[in-house]
């Protein structure tokens, strides 16, 4: 873009030819539409995962640019509610004679100042935290939903979606297990998703600490009927 010498009057736009201004205007409108579309689509999603057709159409139109420029974000920080944390516990099989080696990531040592943590620097601790959150976010039950619609077309679409989601979860989980196995001398590793909820204000006032063992629970890989992932 050309650098334009300022004139004394505002707005001093005359240094830029009309055709350049039109071109730049078109480009900024298209770019901002591409920035707006992913969070709009994300916000318009229903509980069933369907987004507004307008948002879907806009997303399809801008998808190459959105994906290539890393603009595919929902910006739902701590939304709709600040929820529980998700962690990963791993168990390394040390052979028959020894107890399995157990670890959790992200890893916190309660005795160390929280601002320092154990996975250094703090941003790296947060990367491990995000890996654990990401595994949970991709969790899909091993069996397809049992309340499939009667329409063959819809059923096929739901099954295809379930297959894709389940495969994503499995490749991610396997990748984590292989990484942990590699850093522990190739021993077999099993990972379990953990959920750590915050105590309610009443529980906290009643003496429950924010790292109370009762606030942790193992998340099942197979869901019982009616249970949400």
């Amino acid at each position, binding site marked *: 873009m050309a650098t334009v010498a300022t004139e004394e009057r505002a707005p001093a736009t005359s240094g830029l030819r009309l055709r350049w201004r039109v071109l730049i205007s078109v480009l900024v409108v298209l770019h901002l539409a591409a920035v707006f579309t992913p969070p709009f689509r994300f916000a318009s999603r229903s509980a069933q995962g369907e987004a507004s057709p307008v948002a879907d159409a806009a997303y399809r139109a801008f998808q190459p640019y959105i994906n290539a420029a890393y603009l595919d974000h929902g910006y739902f920080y701590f939304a709709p509610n600040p929820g529980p944390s998700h962690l990963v516990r791993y168990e390394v099989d040390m052979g028959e004679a020894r107890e399995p080696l157990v670890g959790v990531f992200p890893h916190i040592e309660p005795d160390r100042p929280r*601002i320092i943590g154990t996975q250094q620097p703090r941003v790296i601790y947060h990367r491990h935290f995000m890996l654990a959150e990401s595994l949970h976010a991709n969790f899909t039950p091993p069996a397809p939903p049992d309340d499939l619609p009667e329409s063959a077309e819809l059923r096929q679409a739901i099954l295809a979606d379930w297959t894709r989601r389940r495969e994503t979860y499995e490749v991610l989980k396997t990748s984590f297990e292989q990484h942990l196995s590699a850093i522990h001398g190739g021993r077999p590793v099993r990972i379990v998703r953990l959920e750590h909820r915050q105590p309610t204000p009443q529980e906290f006032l009643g003496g429950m600490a924010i790292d109370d063992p009762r606030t942790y629970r193992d998340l099942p890989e197979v869901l019982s009927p009616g249970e949400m992932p």
Partner: protein
Amino acid sequence: MNAAVASIRDWFRDVLRAWNRFWFTPAQPHTLALIRILGGGMLLYTHLAWTLHLSNFLGPNSWVTREVSQSLHQDTWAWSYWWLVDSPALMWTLHIAAVVVFAMLMLGVYTRVVAVLAWLMAVAYCHRLIGAMFGLDTTNTMIALYLMVGPAGAVWSVDHWRARRGAERAGRKAPDVQPSVSANVAIRLLQLHLCIVYLFGGIGKMRGELWWDGSALWYALANYEYQSLPMTWLIHAPWLIALLSAVTLFWETFYCFLVWPRLTRPIALGMAVLVHGGIAAFMGMITFGLAMIFANLAFIPPEMTRSCVERLAGRRSRPHDQAQPARQKQASKKQLRASRAAWRPHAPR
């Protein structure tokens, strides 16, 4: 009828004039340059941090292997040169190259070229490291994107220093820092992008009942994994938790309206510093909190940025400014007034 047509025509003319003023008024590059130094510094730190754990995240046995990373982006247009990298030697070479590029961006060395490289490299890391990304990376790439658009190295950079030194050696007058349309467009895009981020952040929170019943902040502060400084003592002031939850909810949702008028802008930006400063200090996300504050600098007029930075640096004016002839200085003052007027959304025409 004629009056109606004329008023519609006037309205369109006003819209065009406002559009022209908003996008095409040349702006000084100082705000963009400050964002380059801080944002470039954050990009440098973010990527230096990977160095300590590079093999765990980018090596052959990484948390998310390159094959898995690539497969998770299947059917998208995402790209990353890291998907082609298998050898540890090449991995280290590319990583060191990226760190050097981010350092050059921060210092303003060949800024026009390294700004493009920095954005490409930052995006390549984000796509490769899927699963480990969070708001910091979204903000880093947002800032890097707009640093490519404007003359981010026009001041407070090695580029500027070299240009001045070259001119002095050749016995020529040091080149003046010129306002440019590209500096304005870059800052405008960052401002609008930020408004979209906050709008949807606010809309997301509007859908949660905890933000409405006033307990959201408790659940954020009582999160053991995020917490860096204990703030759970706030439970003894539940009204304060509820007030802060409500203020956050409304500030974030209405930021895109509050940040434009001159009267409410300090409130919107002051709240941004408090909220993001709080996230940095109490919730362990120092980098993300700071990166968002750096992005908010886009709303500081360049003249104010220049004045603040130069005051902080302990000098009121540069030597080459003093050497300007009186008439040119007078013209510069008029330019600054014009630029300030254009910055205001309701500037007198």
